């Protein structure tokens, strides 16, 4: 037994508050458990370094607001507005030409003049429509970059959440949730934003065209029309914020129903088996009722929209009728102008306002809510999970050691009992170490700590070389064999790839895939085939400390033995195997038996004598029947 001991230490006194909670740990030398001044640990250094490559993404992770989508798009907005002027011109012409056609033409019996003016309005129609068509290009130039940003955020956020906490799955979002964000919610945001830009712009320019037309006909008309229009729009704008809140509550309540239904649907067998049908139905009822209340509250608020439309769109009609005797008698307004004003109100302003209120009320508030959700800075849940620390730096170990654990302690939460406590272990350069133990004794945790995925609560990990971790769930992505195998060493040539493939016994698989340039579709591969590719990738990597965390569990015993021997024979390689089968321990130089306070590390023969658990394990895993 080399440098190994395990003691129950009084953690509370020495563990720095916050260290386990993932807070930044300063790089000042600190008192170790024994009271001696230590060098700052690897983790301390890593934490104090500036954040890694994802720093720009992190700094941009405040919630996205609507105006962010417009920032820096001045030119696009300018072009958009310029084309919209054509639409305003069309609106202007429709009312103005009607007024002139009446006053100068039809009302005086001059049909030719009347038709000439209406013909002019007709010419304006395709011109305005052409403008509308061009406006869509501007909308595309505004909306598509926003969509790009949202997709980037969703992807980075999904990956970030999955990787946080060492990819252990603690904060890992459900695939379905991420896909829904990527395909469904981003699309709602895209459509809503596009619709909003179109409708808002259309209202502004239609209103501008109509109001300009009234000024041209008789400025006094504005006195009658503008105040109620402004009041109606103002009322609605004032109501937008409470409306958005209700919309938010409604969406949340509906999501809660979906979540509950998802649990029920996924758990039908278990609910039936436990006889828990009634309590679960009652639980679902509560959520369904809450959703109903939220929907009703949203519906009640729809009254504000109707009121706004009545005030802004209909009231001017009545006012115009009421003031018409005065307007006409004082010759401020001609009959044609009055007709034109009515036309502006009923044909242009009212429909545009109705469209605006409808879109703002539905799409607008929904967009705000979805933008805020898609781009929320950090998940409120699981705050104790740290960002993955930087890839561990190479640090000095005692001479001859590749890996050195000193009083290593780790717990999954500040209040939780440590999984590993005061673990001391040295692994020699070129040594082959197996790790065995019952479920839950910290085998994978140890692998994560060695690879730097987890930050110890106390103690330290020193590594005299780069660590490569191969987890149980092999990651193979869509691409060529060479891309997958060369993933950790991009400069690897085809010969390196083939050598690594042959070493771990993946040559038949790679030949079947069509050689190094063959395409890999992860969905087409079995779990074992994916593990073979991941092993070849690890073999080709630069790192000299290889950690196989049940990385061969889907291979048959012979394939597993071949792969492990390949790594053991790999030049200058220190191998740490978290064993799936006890046969892995038989091949190792030494085996670490993780068993809480009875943890031991020794060669096979010594362990048979020293560890009752090890004896149990070897007996239990032997092929002969026990009974």
């Amino acid at each position, binding site marked *: 037994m080399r440098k190994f001991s395990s003691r129950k230490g009084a953690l509370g006194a020495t563990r720095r508050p916050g260290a386990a909670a993932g807070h930044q740990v300063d790089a000042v030398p600190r008192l170790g458990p024994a009271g001696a001044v230590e060098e700052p640990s690897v983790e301390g250094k890593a934490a104090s370094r500036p954040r890694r490559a994802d720093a720009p993404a992190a700094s941009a992770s405040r919630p996205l607001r609507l105006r962010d989508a417009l920032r820096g798009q001045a030119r696009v907005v300018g072009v958009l507005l310029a084309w919209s002027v054509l639409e305003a011109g069309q609106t202007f012409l429709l009312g103005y030409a009607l007024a002139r056609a009446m006053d100068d033409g039809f009302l005086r019996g001059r049909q030719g003049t*009347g038709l000439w003016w209406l013909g002019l309005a007709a010419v304006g129609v395709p011109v305005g429509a052409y403008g509308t068509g061009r406006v869509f290009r501007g909308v595309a130039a505004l909306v598509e970059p926003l969509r790009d940003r949202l997709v980037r955020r969703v992807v980075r956020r999904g990956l970030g959440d999955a990787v946080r906490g060492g990819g252990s799955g603690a904060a890992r979002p459900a695939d379905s949730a991420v896909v829904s964000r990527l395909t469904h919610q981003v699309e709602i945001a895209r459509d809503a934003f596009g619709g909003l830009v179109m409708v808002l712009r259309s209202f502004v320019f239609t209103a501008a065209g109509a109001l300009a037309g009234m000024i041209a006909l008789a400025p006094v008309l504005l006195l009658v029309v503008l105040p109620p229009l402004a009041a109606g729009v103002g009322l609605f704008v004032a109501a937008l914020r409470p409306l958005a809140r209700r919309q938010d509550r409604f969406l949340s309540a509906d999501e809660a129903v979906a979540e509950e239904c998802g649990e029920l649907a996924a758990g*039908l067998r278990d609910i039936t088996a436990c006889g828990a049908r009634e309590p679960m139905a009652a639980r679902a009822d509560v959520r369904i009722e809450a959703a109903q209340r939220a929907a009703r509250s949203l519906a009640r608020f729809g009254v504000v929209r109707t009121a706004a439309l009545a005030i802004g769109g209909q009231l001017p009609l009545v006012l115009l009728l009421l003031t018409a005797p005065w307007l006409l008698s004082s010759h401020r307004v001609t009959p044609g102008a009055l007709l034109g004003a009515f036309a502006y109100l009923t044909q242009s302003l009212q429909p545009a306002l109705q469209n605006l209120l409808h879109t703002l009320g539905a799409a607008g508030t929904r967009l705000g809510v979805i933008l805020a959700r898609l781009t929320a800075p950090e998940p409120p849940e699981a705050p104790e999970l740290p960002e993955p620390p930087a890839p561990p730096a190479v640090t000095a170990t005692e001479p001859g050691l590749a890996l050195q654990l000193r009083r290593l302690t780790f717990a999954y939460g500040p209040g939780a009992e440590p999984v590993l406590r005061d673990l001391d272990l040295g692994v020699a350069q070129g040594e082959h170490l197996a790790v065995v133990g019952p479920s839950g004794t910290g085998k994978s945790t140890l692998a994560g700590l060695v690879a730097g995925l987890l930050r110890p609560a106390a103690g330290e990990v020193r590594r005299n070389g780069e660590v490569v971790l191969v987890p149980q769930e092999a*990651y193979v992505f869509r691409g060529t064999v060479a891309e997958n195998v060369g993933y950790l060493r991009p400069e690897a040539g085809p010969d390196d790839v083939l050598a690594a493939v042959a070493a771990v016994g993946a040559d038949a698989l790679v030949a079947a895939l069509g050689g190094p340039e063959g395409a890999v579709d992860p969905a087409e591969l079995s779990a074992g085939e994916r593990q073979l590719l991941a092993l070849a990738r690890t073999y080709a990597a630069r790192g000299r400390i290889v950690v196989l965390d049940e990385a061969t569990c889907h291979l048959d015993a012979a394939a597993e033995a071949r792969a492990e021997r390949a790594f053991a024979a790999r030049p200058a390689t220190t191998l740490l195997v978290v064993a799936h089968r006890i046969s892995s321990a038989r091949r190792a130089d030494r085996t670490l038996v993780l068993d809480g306070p009875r943890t031991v590390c020794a060669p096979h023969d010594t362990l048979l004598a020293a560890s009752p658990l090890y004896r149990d394990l070897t007996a239990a895993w032997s092929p002969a029947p026990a009974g």
Partner: protein
Amino acid sequence: MAVIADAARRDAGRVVALGVLGLGSAGLALVLPAALGHALDLLLRGEPAGRWTALCALIVGVQAATAAVEDLLTGVTTARATAHIRRTAVRHMLAAGPRAAHRGTGDLVTRLVGNASDAAGTPASAASLPAALAAPVGGIVALGLTDPWLAVVFLAGAPLLTLLVRHFARASADCVTGYQHVQGRIATLLVEALGGARTIAAAGTKEREAARVLGPLPELAAHGRTMWHVQGRATAQAAVLVPLLQVAVLAVGGIRLAQGALSPGDLLAAGRYVLLATGIGVVVGQLGAVVRGRAAAGRVADVLAEPVPAYGQRQLPPDGPGTLELRGVTAVRGGETVLDGLDLTVPGGSCVAVVGRSGAGKSVLAALAGRLADPDAGTVLLDGCPLPDLTETGLRDAVGYAFERPVLLGDTIEDTITFGPRPLPPRAAEEAARAAEADGFVRLLPAGYATARDRAPFSGGEVQRLGLARAFAHPGRLLVLDDATSSLDTVTELRVAQALFRDHPHRTRLLTTHRASTAARADTVAWLDSGHLRALAPHATLWPDPEYRALFGGEDA
């Protein structure tokens, strides 16, 4: 559709009111232009128009009030119907139990949430359909009443409108497909990368992965821009038509005015009627909503059509030994007979291990034993009572289940273990967890047994042990373990088995397994092969048979 009709019946008053109000406001919308026109004519002639002005104001006021009430009624009716349909469907799904699960979770949720609310909107959409139809039809009629020539001009131009709208629908559908295809590619890449989170975390390649997943993004943006351009062209084409129709009607109206056949007020009204008449698009939209609602209701109805097992009135004999009997049991799954007239008796208090190749029907047998499913033929009896004769409570209290992949339910870890029809005594969760070797890792959680379930990451083995704890916490005479220890290492499995024998020595146990060591501990092994019982004997008796040994091949080598 029964679903919609049922929801509409429950809110009949509101639905009828919606229809009446809708027709009323459509009528008002048709009367207003005429009244407005008449008032304008009076004003232009210099005559007093006070009464007509007042009438217009009244119409506008009533219109606003009607619209408000309509909005409110639509919202309330839809919300109530949504809740009703969801409650009904959820209860039915729970009553159908595992039989409904064949649709898949995602599909069921879509039906219970999205489809339910789409279907619930149908009564309101249908109620306002007559009004939506009345406005354009009324507009054309009013146009004709104002002057027949105006209606002729409109009807001649309208077909063009329909053609253009149809062209738009086709053009946009084409480019949407390309867009969704690229979107799907990004989603696939992302899901793959999420599955490799630990590798990515260890290699520190998060940024590289993000770049790889986002690789197709420029292509997506290109498709997206094409969509907007196509939509822009189509919208521009459609945007030409309505104003041109209006100008054409106004031009003809102007000529008729000059001829003295029309008044300026009539012309004003005509302009408004053209707009109402082109609102035929609203009808199409409303009709579309009704059609979609019916389709959605159909999808909800599929869930409601899932057969619900009936329970009987009988109680089990108290203190029965827990003898399980399968008599001539046949089960068909996906057209294949997985169990074929199987006879098997598990004596009370004994432990029988069911083994067989994958797909031999082990899990189906486990499901039949506690009536998670009914056999297609034959009978399953517990202490002499056919299972369908038992009350639901009696059956569930008597039979406990643990699964290979248990679904954990309940808010905290404690709730997860005590999950069932009624609360359990305090400390029940801890005792059960200790027996299932789960106490150790639960204590390592931030808040122990009070930790929220969704905050605690569990490995497959830990989930299995919580599932076992749940089964142990609810004692009954029969315990069915369906491959429920497959992810435990052998030492842990041994401890769990010992606890099981120690704490409940008289419980009948039926377990399915792939492991020789598990089969070895059972009193008897039932070897299933091609739907039949190939052998029923102790493990040691069967072990010399190489075909028997092959069942456990490789795994324990």
